[in-house]
């Protein structure tokens, strides 16, 4: 599988939260009815998947989008956030320092932190990576009674999504949400309402987020070499000039002293 993905058909979701239940059980996130206080969109370190309400009142899945070029992966200084060969954004808590840059960088505001622990970790959807390797479907996909979720190769799902939109143009908005946002995400949505609210502070742009910092970081060799050369050069040139000046002063002074 080149890029694992999930297609979410928002129009089918009844908000029954069975996917959340399944997610909690599959990932052993504790009591499914335990809702920590530090949340207002339903996500927390104990809840990697939440059903939120759009401004229009539709039920919309909110979870890690598994961006094709993920801001969190590029932000993490120690490769604790990384992409698996299947394109799943995974997390290695043995490497994590807890700087929370991934949380700051995520354009969807997804990663959550274990604030009430003295040894905290980051929590977010890992697309049931372990279940996949056992040949099973992600827990949420397997559980959904309404066939809201479809799991598969991203390109296949994109085709399905566009097909459904073409077949029922009056039912769906003509956009596959997640096809281009933030450089494309593995979570694709088709919907009758705009899903821009899932983005952080309005719609998320199409440009891949890692490029924002890479544009600067790729200048590093030039900047460091440039600064070093400039500093050495200036030191040398100014030093020589001052020596010359000093020498000249001395030669000027010598006759007078005579």
């Amino acid at each position, binding site marked *: 599988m080149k890029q694992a993905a999930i297609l979410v058909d928002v129009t089918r*979701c009844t*908000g*029954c*939260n069975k996917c*959340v239940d399944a997610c909690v059980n599959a990932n052993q996130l504790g009591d*499914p009815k*335990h809702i*920590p*206080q*530090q*949340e*207002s*969109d339903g*996500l*927390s370190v104990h809840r990697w998947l939440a*059903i939120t*309400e759009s401004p229009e009142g539709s*039920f919309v899945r909110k979870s890690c989008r598994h961006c094709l070029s993920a801001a969190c992966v*590029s*932000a*993490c*200084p*120690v*490769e*604790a956030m990384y992409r698996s060969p299947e394109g799943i954004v995974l997390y290695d808590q043995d*490497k*994590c*320092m*807890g*700087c*929370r840059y991934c949380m*700051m*960088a995520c354009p969807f*505001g997804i990663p959550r*932190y*274990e*604030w*009430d622990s*003295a040894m*905290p*970790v980051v929590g977010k959807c890992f697309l049931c990576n372990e279940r996949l390797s056992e040949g099973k479907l992600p827990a949420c996909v397997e559980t959904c*009674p*309404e066939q809201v979720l479809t799991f598969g190769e991203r390109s296949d799902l994109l085709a399905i999504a566009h097909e459904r939109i073409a077949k029922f143009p009056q039912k769906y908005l003509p956009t596959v949400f997640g096809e281009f946002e933030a450089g494309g995400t593995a979570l694709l949505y088709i919907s009758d309402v705009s899903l821009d609210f899932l983005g*952080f*502070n309005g719609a*998320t742009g199409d440009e891949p987020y*890692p490029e*924002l*910092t890479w*544009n*600067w*970081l790729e200048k*590093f060799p030039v900047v*460091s070499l440039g*600064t*070093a050369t400039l*500093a*050495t050069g200036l*030191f040398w040139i*100014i030093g020589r000039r001052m020596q010359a000046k000093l020498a000249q002063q001395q030669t000027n002074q010598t006759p007078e002293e005579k």
Partner: protein
Amino acid sequence: MNNMLRTWIKDGLWAIVFAAVVAAVIRFVVGLGAGSGLNDATPWGMWIAFKLGFVALAGGGFTLAAVVYIFHLERFRPILRRAILMALLGYGSFIVSLIFDLGLPWHIYMPIISWQHHSVMFEIAWCVMLYFSVLVLEFSPVILEHPLFKHKFFQVILHGLHKAILPLVILGIVLSTLHQSSLGALFLIMPHRVHPLWYSPWLPYLFFTSAIAAGMMALVVEGFLVERWFKRGMHFDLLERLGAWVPLPLGLYLLLRLSDLFLRGVLPGALDGSWQSILFLTEILVCGILPIGLLAIKKVRESREGLLTSAILIIAGILSQRMSLSMFAMRQSTGLDYSPSLAETLIAFGIPAAALLIYLFFAENLALLGDEIPNPQATAKLRPLWMFSQDTPGRIIFARRSGLATFAIALILPAMLNLPISDTSANAVQPAIGWETLRIDGNQTGYIVDFPHVEHQERLTEQLGSKESACATCHHLNYPDDEATSCSQCHTDYYQPISIFNHTVHQKSLGGNVSCVECHETEHVRQSAAICQDCHETMTAQEGESVFNPFASSYKDALHRRCLNCHEQKAVELDKPELALCSTCHTYYESDQLQTNLP
């Protein structure tokens, strides 16, 4: 400044440090959530804002090193050492602060072994690590000159350091350039979080130029403070020169910042009258353009008041930019508010307080201030950090310090006991959608009915035998675009409880017209029918209920039951009969329409 005042100021700094130590213990015992105000919506807060401030103020270190060594302006040498020390303490504060901020600080070495060069944070980790080492090397001659280190071994090191100073300085400049600008680049990836008036694709350049300005001005303020404290070591002529040059980096910073905002069309947002726009305008006009104007006037610049005022304004403006960017004007992912907790604030202030004490320690003991008067107290041994005056007896100092420590602990501990410890049960309010109660606005009128979802699930599961068929009762998807059956399909009658026994379905499933005898022994009327339990073994009639369950209560009763039971109970309990009156929820003039006062 008299000795008494000095003692009090030092005591104050110590008190903050003690309090911060208590807060630090709390933070590590209870975790970040209870030890700070940080939360999922605001993962970075006060500590990051302060860190940016420390590093900006440390900018004088590499600037002065460049002035003295690269530009050969030897006359600035007297204030070079204190500039290096400021940088050392600034970066030291950054690192200490980081230890509190990191969730797993014992993994702080990870950037050394697990490289991820696409991360700005990775570059920062390395730059800080290397630059701090460079600063230690640059500063260590000051320590090694002390008579305490007159052994030959130290003198060899000292000699080597003097030889290596130029490469060290150049390395320090390169690392500082990278690091100061990278701190700005850290925020490039979060245009969604940083307020538009502070966001800029040129943040690295803004941070670099402003760090030079802030570092220079920090040296000016430091000069004044040192003079006040030690009655020497100010070097006003040098500080005045710094004041004359600072408009260059500061002007460049302002120019870059304003022109970027203008080019991207964000600048009109500065005039919208919001508090952010006022803060922004203050930063630019009062703390940027005004001091440049002041410093341009020779008379003002050469007056002590003029120079100090300009320096303070510039520092305030740049610190405000750092803190607004990373804290005040930062936008949050969800509606959760952020306000720094007591422990967080104490730690944030405790670190610079400790840095000030260390500065005083060095200044009192070492040849730091760069004037020709030898430090009379720098004799054979270093005076311990906790002493505040040569002639105060040790026991008095001990009494004062331990008193302060006790006071700090006594003050902070009760606050710790009030910290919000996360409680799994303390969550009375259910989310808008979800587990136990769904909020349903059936008529789409904005009036919401709480639908006891779990209750329905459990009852139907019991009645129908399996969870699947329970779900399918309402979520059956046999209609096009069906989502969920409306309440009225079961609660058909508004006023009367109603049987939801579906005769047609039973008839069909039992074989059509020949199936009557399956249930009806004699006449084809309800009274003659077999009770449900004959076939559905789990279905038992409750006391007072018909054998022909399941009954759905009337629409009206179902709705009322969501609120009224509890209201009636509370009305008796609290002796507040008005809680159970119809008019509590229904306004009398619209009695036929459900008009609630509830949200």
